[in-house]
């Protein structure tokens, strides 16, 4: 889609000049005016239906997470074994699971911990990743080497294994871990891609003239990094963060699925999937509903990140 648009934009600028009159000349002048990267990206995004669909989905899911009471009356913990695998009735549009809990309510209330963990972990990863990426890219040399070794060590243990060991290690009691621990664990393990992206942006920006000019004027490294380099490196970083959000939500669900994620008393999609998967021969709905919610959430975040990345990609302009 963007290829077609860039071709169309080129065609517009190349219109033959001549006694065409003010309107054509004005249009040509407007089309020829250089747009900033952000404005170009926004123009591409506006026309991309994937962006609108995924943005709408993300909005809906965030509203569900923040105001679950708008969608359902009970909080999903009101279970009665007498209603085991009951048919849908009243507000419980999907029926009841093996414990007699309302499947729909649990799916709605499960959004909150997932989004909280996703957002929290991504924020922590953003801070750590930005710090490591900027210092590594700006100072280079042995600082870069040391930080690269640290990245190697973090990456040496596959993500899920590391998360399991960390979660168990930081909270050895049997009751599962709280949201805070999961947020910290995922935040500390997932910052490497963000750091790498920030590092390459910083290295590219570092060689620009305005940085040399700032340094000649006597700006210290801190000021240069925050005032000059950071604004120029932010775009691909944001894209990585959006995709990272989706990955963090998926990983939290995986941890809950394995039983090392959130407290089993917490309503969570991963936990529900885990309980329903063992008993799938008895009923399919308790598995399908939280799976669909989880898949849609992760899908919309990743699609959003993909659309934003395509819009910002200079090669497709």
């Amino acid at each position, binding site marked *: 889609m963007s*290829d077609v648009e860039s071709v169309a934009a080129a065609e517009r600028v190349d219109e033959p000049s001549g006694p065409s009159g003010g309107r054509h000349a004005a249009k040509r002048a407007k089309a020829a005016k250089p747009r900033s990267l952000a404005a170009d990206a926004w123009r591409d995004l506006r026309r991309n239906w994937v962006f609108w669909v995924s943005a709408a989905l993300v909005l809906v899911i965030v509203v569900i997470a923040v105001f679950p009471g708008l969608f359902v009356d009970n909080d999903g913990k009101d279970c009665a074994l007498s209603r085991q695998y009951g048919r849908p009735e009243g507000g419980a549009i999907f029926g009841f699971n093996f414990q007699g809990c309302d499947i729909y309510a649990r799916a709605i209330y499960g959004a909150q911990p997932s989004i909280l963990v996703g957002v929290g972990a991504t924020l922590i990863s953003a801070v750590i990743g930005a710090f490591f990426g900027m210092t590594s890219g700006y100072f280079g040399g042995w600082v870069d080497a040391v930080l690269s*070794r640290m990245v*190697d*060590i973090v*990456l*040496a*243990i*596959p*993500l*899920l*294994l590391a998360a*399991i*060991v*960390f979660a*168990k*290690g*930081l909270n*050895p009691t*049997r009751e599962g871990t709280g949201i805070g621990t999961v947020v910290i664990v995922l935040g500390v393990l997932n910052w490497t891609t963000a750091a790498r992206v920030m590092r390459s942006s910083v290295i590219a920006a570092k060689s620009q003239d305005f940085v040399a000019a700032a340094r000649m004027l006597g700006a210290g490294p801190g000021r240069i990094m925050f005032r000059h380099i950071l604004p120029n490196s932010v775009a691909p970083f944001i894209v990585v963060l959006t995709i990272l959000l*989706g990955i963090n939500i*998926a*990983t939290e*669900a*995986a941890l809950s*699925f*394995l*039983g*090392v994620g959130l407290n089993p008393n917490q309503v969570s999609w*991963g936990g529900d*999937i885990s309980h*329903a*998967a063992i008993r*799938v*021969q008895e009923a*399919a709905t308790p*598995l*399908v509903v939280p*799976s669909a919610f*989880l*898949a849609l959430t*992760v*899908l919309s975040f*990743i*699609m959003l990140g*993909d659309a934003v990345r395509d819009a910002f990609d200079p090669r497709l302009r």
Partner: protein
Amino acid sequence: MFRYIVRRLLQMVLTFFGATFIVYALMFANQGDPIQVLAGERPVSDALRAELTARYHLDKPFIVQYGYYMRGMLTGDFGESLTGRSIAEMMAQAWPVTAKLALMALIFAVLFGVTAGVVAGIRRSGIFDHVTLIVTLILLSIPIVVLAPMARLLFGVKLRWVPATAGAEPNLWALLVPALILGSLAMATQLRVTRASVAENLRADYIRTARAKGLKRNRVIGVHLLRNSLIPVVTLIGVDLGGLMSGAIITERAFNIPGVGSNLFRGIQTEDGPLVVGFVSMLVIIFLMANLIVDVLYAVLDPRIRYE
């Protein structure tokens, strides 16, 4: 080339020690009283306590205990799990199943991913390209936590094409669907990387020269394009192996396959510290070695890397 290999080897050793130290520290630094954990509910007499302390070096500082553990690991002795079984023996028993599963998944990923990626890259913006992009986006987005149980529901329970439970010694047919699910993420990433690499290389000068020389299309694509486009995929295979190991835990749990993943999972649930540390350390070793081989292969294929 030799210096490159030596450098990579040193990096691998450093990373290995760093990673295993972190794993060890996390599992054992927080432990309450390991002797009581071993004894369970029964009281421990003083003599027994003294003997166990001496045997397991529990009175030494933490770093010395780590040293004993590493020395044991490097000689192949991974210790015993809390249930008393030798960890190395448990690994040897669980390993063939997971190896079969992972190998099938990797073959599927490379075969489908690379082939489809090459085709999609050559015919960009065709119907095949768009379809594969959408399919891979869906596969990349839907977590394996959703894919594995749903696949089991669909193919094992509802359609009954494959057995719903793998059993003790699963044959290749029972492992087929789990392998496909496990490899789906790797296939999606490899397809995208291959596609991008092929599309970029198609515009390169050497391809234009080859075509201008009048070479047959098959030779241009099969010999020149492929050799250069597949380089990034090779590195990706090393990374994908790590993903396969992570995904294996979930897939084995969802399909009830008795492999390394489910043993590890049981160890986590029963708080079996030695088991978890042993298995994770072994997996880290395998992952690092695979990445080393992949990096060396990369240097063989792309001479520019040797001087990095």
